[in-house]
Each structure stands twice: as structure tokens, then as C-alpha cells.
């Protein structure tokens, strides 16, 4: 369908906006727009308002760069959390994933990406400042690197490790190995090989 065939310019501009979303093409965009047109006016306005608020009111926690409603996010503001342990993650989705484990009681630091010049992200684009300050002030006992297990994740790990290398802080990283419930024969050789090299004393698995 070419652009001339839209019966209305307003429709066309709405379709154009929708098709900028990731994974949405012109056809899907038109379907979504026509769907919205059929809904109650108030529902659609509420939808639009939530988008506006999303952009205008959401802030990033000044301490950890997690998405937040207030200056400090709920996790950073909580006195129940261990503020001496920081888990370094790529983005907010990782925070949600780790929170869902219910196994972690420290705080987070969200980098907003990993070093990848091919995607336009250099070391200066990472949100590092408050973390470096906290570590330099001696407020942190342990840093847990929980970045993606890709080459770019590794590069970022190394970069951070070298940055904090001279400061007294324990640096750990997530274990990598065989998934729970996996058959060994279906585990890829690289993971399995690594699990063998970094095998655990059995007592620790009890």
C-alpha cells in the first residue's frame, strides 16, 4: 500500500508513528490504529495520557539508574536492603529477572547498555558515575557482575574490573553452567566444558 492511498492525513500520521515501534510494520500499525478508532473515546485518551506520563514523569533513580517514580527507586530507598552489595546489570529487565528469583537482597546498578561501538555504545555512554563514587567512598563491599554472557558483556566486565582494580572491593560474577532440569546430552559443549572446569564441591550444592 503506498502512502497516497490513505483516506486521511491524520490516519496516515498515526500509522507512521506506530510503525516506528520495534517489530511493527505499516500493516500492523494500520491494524492497531483502526482498532483504537473503534474503542471508547475515554479509553483511548487514557491510553494517550499514560504515554504522555510515561515520558514526562518517569525518572531514573539517581543512585542506580533504575526506572522509578521518585528520585530514589523503591529498592534504593528501602532500609531492608543490603546497601553494601551491588549487582551490576545491563537494563531494567535484568533487575526484574533477578528480583523474581527472590534470592537477592542487595541493591542494583543499571548500566543502560554494554560496551559495543558497533551499536553506538562506547564506555562513556554507560551510566557509571554514581557507582564509581559509591565504590570510591568505600560504601560497597561486593560488586556482582550480572551482565549478558556475550562477548560485549565480557568486554564490559573487564572494563569495570580494571576501573575498580585498585580499590578494595570484592568483585564476583554470576556462575555459568548447566541449567536446572537440563539433560547433559543436550547441553552445548562450551557450557558443559566450562561447568566441568569450574565444578563445585558437592557439599555446596546440598
Amino acid at each position, binding site marked *: 500500500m503506498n502512502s497516497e492511498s490513505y483516506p486521511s492525513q491524520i490516519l496516515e500520521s498515526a500509522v507512521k508513528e506506530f510503525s516506528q515501534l520495534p517489530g511493527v510494520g505499516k500493516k500492523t500499525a494500520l491494524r492497531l490504529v483502526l482498532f483504537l478508532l473503534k474503542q471508547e473515546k475515554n479509553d483511548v485518551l487514557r491510553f494517550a495520557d499514560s504515554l504522555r506520563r510515561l515520558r514526562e514523569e518517569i525518572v531514573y533513580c539517581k543512585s542506580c539508574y533504575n526506572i522509578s517514580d521518585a528520585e530514589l527507586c523503591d529498592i534504593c530507598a528501602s532500609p531492608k536492603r543490603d546497601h553494601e552489595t551491588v549487582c551490576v546489570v545491563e537494563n531494567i529487565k535484568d533487575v526484574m529477572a533477578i528480583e523474581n528469583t527472590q534470592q537477592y537482597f542487595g541493591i542494583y546498578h543499571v548500566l543502560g547498555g554494554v560496551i559495543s561501538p558497533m551499536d553506538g555504545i*562506547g564506555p562513556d555512554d554507560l551510566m557509571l558515575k554514581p557507582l564509581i563514587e559509591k565504590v570510591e567512598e568505600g560504601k560497597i563491599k561486593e560488586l556482582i557482575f550480572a551482565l549478558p554472557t556475550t562477548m560485549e558483556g565480557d568486554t564490559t566486565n573487564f572494563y569495570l574490573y580494571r576501573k575498580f582494580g585498585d580499590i578494595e572491593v570484592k568483585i564476583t560474577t554470576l556462575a555459568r553452567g548447566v541449567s536446572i532440569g537440563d539433560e547433559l546430552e543436550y547441553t552445548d559443549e562450551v557450557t558443559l566444558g566450562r561447568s566441568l572446569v569450574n565444578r563445585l564441591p558437592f557439599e555446596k550444592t546440598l
Partner: protein
Amino acid sequence: MFLKHLHLINFKNIELAQLELCEGINCFIGSNGAGKTNMLDAIYYMSFCKSFFNPIDSQNIRHEHDFFVIQGTYNLNDEKEHVYCGLKKGVKKQFKRNKKEYDKLSNHIGLLPLVMISPQDERLIVEGSEQRRKYIDSVISQYDRAYLEHLINYNRVISQRNVYLKNLKALNKAAHDMLDVWDFQILELGKKISKARALFLDELKPVFLEMYNFISGEKEVVEFAYKSHLNDDDFEVALRESRERDMILGYSTKGVHKDDVDFRIGGYPIKKMGSQGQKKTFLIALKLGQFKFLAEHKNRKPLLLLDDIFDKLDTQRGDRLIELVGGDFFNQIFITDTQLNRIKPVLRKINKESRIFMVEDGEFKQQ
């Protein structure tokens, strides 16, 4: 391991072919363009999930048709293995083992080891170092998955470093800090890659020499040597010192991505000094060395595909080659040739079962 039965539909110029193959030597005889090499390519396809010649799958479909099917039945440790490969234009390639489709094609590669000797191998000598690295990498990756992983990561490090260098305006402290990280990865991954390459070439060398000397009748002295920046004493220093230059050029000049293998004959580069027949002998010895290497690592004798093997070789070398591959060390072999009279006396000399297929216009008839 051997291929017992082969069934093709619409693969390249072959409309339909059903072949019963023998465990010894199978010959495809026909004139240029008849379809001999296409048959070898179909066999290659079943081992590597792609064509040896044309990486664009859809171009391997017979003209004016929209699909091809290759099916093979193998005897693997006395068990029957059925391999199916189907491609329809615009649809994802289907690859099945015993009617079960693979999630990842890489899981199939290595199951049916195969070595192809083709006139195209000449590229290994005449073209740039990239061809030689590609060759070494493809052989090692067939038995060492971790190697492939290191290689992929290494190449990504180089790509990231290159983009960073291209956009870099000044080589200040922050830039050095960042480059330190990539250089560390280049060093660590590079060591692993370089070690595996050196080990492979070391293991290959004695077998290669044995093969070369046998085919040539010990007429010439040949050798090859692995060359890598990593073997230089001060690689770390050199890597650091190359930063300025790398920044100006916009790419990384030091590392295992510049590795090469130096092929020599009588002390001189074979590319410049070798005759056509010597080059061919060199390449055949290299590939047969690879055969032995794979056979030991896989504990299974690969299929051996010989495309237009007698071209450029003198009669003595041709005879000795046949004597060699007719031996017990090799199992199933596929040979293409244009002349029946050349192949017949050759087969008589060998103590192996053989079958001849005459090829004409994509049709195969057993003689």
C-alpha cells in the same frame, strides 16, 4: 562409514537420480558440464548442510523449478542413518536425520566427516592469507566446538575495536583504558586460537610430508610453517604500539586474524616457484593429511571426494595417488573423470570394489 544410497531431485542440473553406491570406489564419468561435480556437491551437501561451490542455496535448484531434495542412506557403525535435505524457494531449508528435523544445522556438521579435493583448492595457494585461515578454521571447528566459539568472539572483539578506532578522535587516557580491555581479550582469545592452530598444523605436518613424498616419489622438498604475530616475543608491546597506526587506518593490524601459513617448495614460496603439477600435489597431500587427521579425531574414516584429480598430474604421480587411496586407510571414495579409458586400467590395479556411472546431461547410468 559409507554412503549406500543417494536420491536427488532437481539438484543443479540433475532432474532425478537414484544411485546404489559401493563401499569402495565410485566413479562418475562424463564430458564437461554433464553433472559429475554436481553429484559430488550433493554428497558434500549432506555432510556440511551447504554447497561446496555456491553458498546461495536457492541457486542450487534446477533452473525453472522451485525446490530440490537430496536424500542419502548411510551405513554408520552398521546402523542405518537417513539424511534428508529439502529446499523450497522462499522457505527455510529442511534438514533431517532419521526423519527428525535438526534445531541447529551446526549439530549435524561433523557427523558425516568428508574431505573434498577439487581444482578450487588452488585458491589456498594463489589467493591471500584469508583463504588459508578459513581452511584451517573449518577443519579445527569440525572437531573442536570451543575453538569455534573463541573464534567468533575474537572476530567480534576485532570488529568492535575497529568501529571504536574509526570514531576515535584522540588517543587519550580514556581511549587507552578502553583499548587495554580489547587488547587483553585479543591476547587471551588469540593465545587459545593460535595454540589450536599450531597444534593442528604440527599434527598435520608429518602426515602431509608422508603423502607428498609418496605421490611425488620424493622428488622435491616441501614444507609449511605457521606464521602468527602472537609468536613474536613482544606481541603485547607491539599490540600496544600499533594503536596509533590502527587509529589512522581505522582497523586492527595485529593479532591472529592476520595469521598465515607459509607454503614452500625447495625453500621457495610454492605460489611463485611451484609448477602446476607440484601445486596440485601439494594440495592433494594437504587434503589427504587432513583426511588422516579427521579419521583419528573422529574415529571414523571420512568420505573422500576427488574432483578432476588426474588433471595436471603426470602419469607416475596419478598412479601413485591411486595406489595410495586404493589402500586400506581410505574407505569410500568418489572420483570424477572425463575419460573412461583413463579410469578403467586404474581401477584394475586396486584391490577395492568399484562401480562406474556414466553421466550425460544430468542423467546417471550404472555401467
